[in-house]
């Protein structure tokens, strides 16, 4: 059964449409990723799920409840990690946990939470003195403290160093075993690939793709990605006739990234040889979720 239903959701701010008819459903116990470039409408979508914003159109249901109209029944089953949201700077970790425990009817034991999150030796430390990773872990603890059914994590690992990021992934992965449903907003493909059962890809307020991470990669046709810096400029019309070509991206310094199949690579190599063009720093890789993401959010060739 779907625990979150988003049906033709629309939201605009001052005439600018930010979310334009997005629909998806999240199953119970799933880790569901919301991906997309900045301004694609990810945060607005989850804010409608959290009941922080009222949709202009469409319908959002959380465990069958309207997050805005049924706030009283939604907040006890929802745990939220918000982007850009601090705690009182002089509140200690212990005080924050005790305070937030008092908000919920049947709170989790914060001592065991803190132990799992590796914050036990930080209990007496004030929020303002915590490192970025410790703050994030505390936010995770606060999101979990009410024993929620659904946890929404918005840009959880932004600003963390790689080690802290991996530690956090490990923690979130552990939620799955407890049957907690997780909605994860991110712009790190690696994070989505690592954690998510399914991923919704947003592009300028609309749903560009909805699939498993593996399915998304496959949707690029089991693609092969060639990147190189040609010795002279190659224009799109020269590349377009290549067989099975899916997309061409141009990076700084004339570098080209061509997505296609092995066939595309063969044809590209012959074409380059025929025209006497050298391919510097040539790399050929099979596509990752990164490539699928860029492919799906890029303009058509």
């Amino acid at each position, binding site marked *: 059964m779907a625990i979150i239903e988003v049906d033709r959701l629309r939201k605009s701010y001052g005439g600018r449409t930010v979310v334009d008819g997005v629909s998806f459903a999240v199953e119970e116990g799933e880790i569901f990723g919301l991906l997309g470039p900045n301004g694609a409408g990810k945060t607005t979508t989850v804010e409608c799920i*959290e*009941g*922080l914003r009222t949709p202009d159109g469409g319908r959002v249901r959380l465990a069958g409840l309207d997050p805005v109209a049924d706030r*009283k029944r939604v*907040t*006890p089953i*929802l745990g*939220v990690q*918000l982007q*850009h*949201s*601090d*705690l*009182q700077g*002089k*509140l200690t970790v212990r*005080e924050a946990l*005790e*305070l*937030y425990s*008092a*908000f*919920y*009817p049947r709170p989790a034991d914060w001592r065991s939470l803190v132990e799992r999150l590796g914050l036990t030796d930080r209990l007496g430390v004030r929020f303002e003195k915590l490192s970025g990773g410790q703050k994030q872990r505390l936010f995770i603890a*606060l999101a979990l403290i*009410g024993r929620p059914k659904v946890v929404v994590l918005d840009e959880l690992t932004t600003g963390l160093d790689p080690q802290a990021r991996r530690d956090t992934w490990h923690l979130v992965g552990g939620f799955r075993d407890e049957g907690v449903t997780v909605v994860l907003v991110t712009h790190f493909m690696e994070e989505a690939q690592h954690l998510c059962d399914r991923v919704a890809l947003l592009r300028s307020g609309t749903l560009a793709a909805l699939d498993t991470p593996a399915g998304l990669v496959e949707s690029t046709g089991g693609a092969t990605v060639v990147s190189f810096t040609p010795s002279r400029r190659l224009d799109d019309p020269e590349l377009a006739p290549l067989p099975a070509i899916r997309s061409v991206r141009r990076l700084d310094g004339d570098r080209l990234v061509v997505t296609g199949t092995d066939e595309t690579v063969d044809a590209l190599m012959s074409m380059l040889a025929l025209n006497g063009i050298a391919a510097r720093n040539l790399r050929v890789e099979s596509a990752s979720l990164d490539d699928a993401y860029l492919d799906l959010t890029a303009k058509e060739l």
Partner: protein
Amino acid sequence: MSASIAVLKAEARLFRREPGSVFWILAFPLLLLVILGLIPSFREPGPASGGARPIDLYLPVAVLLGVILAGLTSLPPALTAYREKGILRRMSTTPVRPAALLAAQVIVHGAAALAGGIVIIAVGRLLYGVPLPANPAAYALTLVLGTLGALVGGALIAALSRSAKASTTTATLAFFPVAFTAGVYAPVRSMPEVLRRVVEFTPFGAASQALDQASAGSWPALPLLAIMLVWITVLAGASVRWFRWE
């Protein structure tokens, strides 16, 4: 209910960790009274004040000064920072309404102001023999109304300010005229007649006069209390109307 009390307890503890707020609300008005009392002429009955000494006239002013510093100067940046840092937003995703946090801040600042006032009255009595209020009930009522006025004024500044920095600036600018009307520079009672009449229409001018009358043993003139009530209602209404949660 228990959640709101937990919020209130946490905010009271956090308030004690703000040395700035504690100094300005609790220590500064008291220091002012003590220093003024050290000046010999302040302890001599003045010619124009009917036997009262300047220190007697300044005591209610020092009490009001603490009230103004609590409500008007210290409260707005505290409230605005909670909005600015997303603390209200985080709380609005929990079963507790963020209004509980604002209410806790208002209550803590109000309690600090009243506690400071009691300390000032006690110290004034012990150090300089300033008579205790002859009408304690009227004094308490006036002090509570004055405190409410300062708190809702501060809440309005917080409501209208975009950032904690902006609210500090507004509060500082507001402080000087408000302190003047409360009689910090010259007691309202000793102001020229026309000026005094005008000042009595301001919330703290009225509070200052009402405190004077309660100190002397009478009930404050009804118009003074009415003026304070009108201000409280208008400022409270305006701050609720214009408060932005984000």
